[in-house]
């Protein structure tokens, strides 16, 4: 089949991918969308196999596909929902790595022998080789940090930013020289330098910011795939790569905004430094005391409430208490309580992560409310139960201009009638700042592990 015919047939794949993303606009037909996308991918592979230029290497191809499929299926089936961010990082990284390797082979196989690359394809080759490699190495470090194989704390050393910049420029220079001299090893060296840059680029970023990094690297891999499309003159690669590039860029921006930080601050500023600011000390102060309560006290509040809103945070997922929360919620619903879940955009370890975790615990998605929808409802809410969340309910973000999280959009739980905070201790959250909500006269603290607390509450509500 000629390239022109193939490009015509690839239109089906392009349409399938756009439809897949379109279907993701509602949880009702999202799954169908993904299946359409997968069918489109299969179609693209079939068309590619029928190309005139694909004439050999069948056994290599089959073996590679087999190994890759096994890795993919086993990884995807085994992963725990709490570990989803790492998994996304891993699959993202391998895609970037593939893009880099493809441009390397194409460079060696075609142009080094043809004697000329040409400026246009040269730029595309450099882009897909370097960006793909950065994405690969960066994703692996992000995976390591989230999996706690690498220290989650920002790793810094003197002259870091200058060193990183030099490495980046060096990688580009090597690649440019490779294009001019057609020396294959120079491009390979450039790819290695870019990989090293990917590593040192992600190392100084804290574990809590990894989701932003993953999303950004997702966009990178998309763009690398699009660049590979320019190298191979394949429209389907250009369109698909760019769709992912657009999606990754959009998500990265959304996430940075939800944390009230610029992307530059996430990537180049160590959050820990700002936390030491004096604003933090003043937050809890005023000699305010904390009220603590027992599970029985809280059970009575919940059982006689008209509306209860749960605010789940990552602490809930860590304690694997999603199922217990759902059980408690159902118990309350049986007693006629209106139960809802308020989900902050950055709850969990990546955007939308908490929704997946609750869906896994069979919480119906129509009980999950986004921040903007639930915020006006808090004044009419009798009890808010905050489980394993901290910074996303910190009123300091609204009323303390000195606070490092000032301006970050939060769930206004302090506007409700009563707040119950379930927490192991008074230790601060990710951002390392004190939370005035804990000292609010409307707030009671239930000091316990999230899972243990839920079990006690279930027992107590049953006996009310």
């Amino acid at each position, binding site marked *: 089949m000629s390239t022109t015919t193939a490009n015509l047939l690839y239109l089906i794949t392009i349409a399938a991918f756009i439809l897949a993303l379109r279907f993701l606009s509602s949880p009702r037909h999202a799954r169908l969308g993904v299946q359409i*996308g997968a069918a489109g*991918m299969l179609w693209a592979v079939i068309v590619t196999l029928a190309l005139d230029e694909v004439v050999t290497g069948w056994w290599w191809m089959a073996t590679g596909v087999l190994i890759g499929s096994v890795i993919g299926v086993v990884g995807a089936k085994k992963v725990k929902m709490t570990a989803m961010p790492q998994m996304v990082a891993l699959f993202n990284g391998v895609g970037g790595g593939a893009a880099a390797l493809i441009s390397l082979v194409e460079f060696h196989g075609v142009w080094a022998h043809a004697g000329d690359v040409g400026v246009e394809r040269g730029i595309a080759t450099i882009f897909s080789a370097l960006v793909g490699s950065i994405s690969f190495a960066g994703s692996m470090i992000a995976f390591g940090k989230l999996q706690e194989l690498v220290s989650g704390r920002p790793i810094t050393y003197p002259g870091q930013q200058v060193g990183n910049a030099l490495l980046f420029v060096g990688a580009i220079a090597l690649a440019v020289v490779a294009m001019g001299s057609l020396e294959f090893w120079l491009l390979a060296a450039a790819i290695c330098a870019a990989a090293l840059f990917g590593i040192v680029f992600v190392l100084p970023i804290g574990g809590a910011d990894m989701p932003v990094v993953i999303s950004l690297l997702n966009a990178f891999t998309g763009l690398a795939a699009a660049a590979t499309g320019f190298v191979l003159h394949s429209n389907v*690669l250009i369109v*698909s*790569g760019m769709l992912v590039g657009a999606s990754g860029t959009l998500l990265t921006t959304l996430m940075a905004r939800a944390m009230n930080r610029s992307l530059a601050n996430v990537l180049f500023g160590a959050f820990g430094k700002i936390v030491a600011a004096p604003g933090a000390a003043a937050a809890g102060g005023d000699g305010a005391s904390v009220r603590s309560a027992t599970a029985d006290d809280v059970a009575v509040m919940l059982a006689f409430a008209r509306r209860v809103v749960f605010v789940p945070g990552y602490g809930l997922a860590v304690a694997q208490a999603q199922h217990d929360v759902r059980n408690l919620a159902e118990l309350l619903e049986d007693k006629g309580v209106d139960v809802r879940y308020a989900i902050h955009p950055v709850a969990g370890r990546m955007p939308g992560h908490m929704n997946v975790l609750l869906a896994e615990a069979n919480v*119906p998605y129509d009980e999950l409310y986004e921040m903007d929808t639930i915020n006006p409802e808090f004044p009419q809410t009798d009890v808010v139960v905050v489980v394993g969340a901290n910074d996303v309910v910190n009123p300091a973000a609204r009323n303390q201009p000195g606070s490092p999280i000032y301006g970050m959009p939060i769930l206004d739980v302090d506007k409700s009638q009563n707040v119950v905070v379930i927490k192991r201790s008074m230790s601060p959250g990710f951002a390392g700042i004190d939370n005035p909500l804990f000292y609010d006269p409307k707030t009671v603290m239930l000091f316990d592990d999230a899972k243990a607390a839920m079990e006690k509450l279930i027992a107590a509500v049953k006996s009310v």
Partner: protein
Amino acid sequence: MSYQLVTELTILVLAAFVGFEVISKVPTLLHTPLMSGTNAIHGIVIVGAIIVIGAHHPGWFMRLVAFFAVILATANVVGGFVVTDRMLEMFKKRPDA
């Protein structure tokens, strides 16, 4: 600048706009499946991997590099789609509603 490049750049820019348009309609509820779904979509590099492994006889070393590209791209595609499907399968509406 070649005519082909201009056409390809046009496609690229249009795809960017389509991407932003479609993605901005996805609710935050589904942002994690969105990320892993788009992840699967950039696995389209598998097309490139098949082309480079099947097209040339560049010697065993390049064949090996292309072989790794096929493995990585396949893991990306298969893993991405399977895990996204697994997540979306769990999203259910309230039974009585």
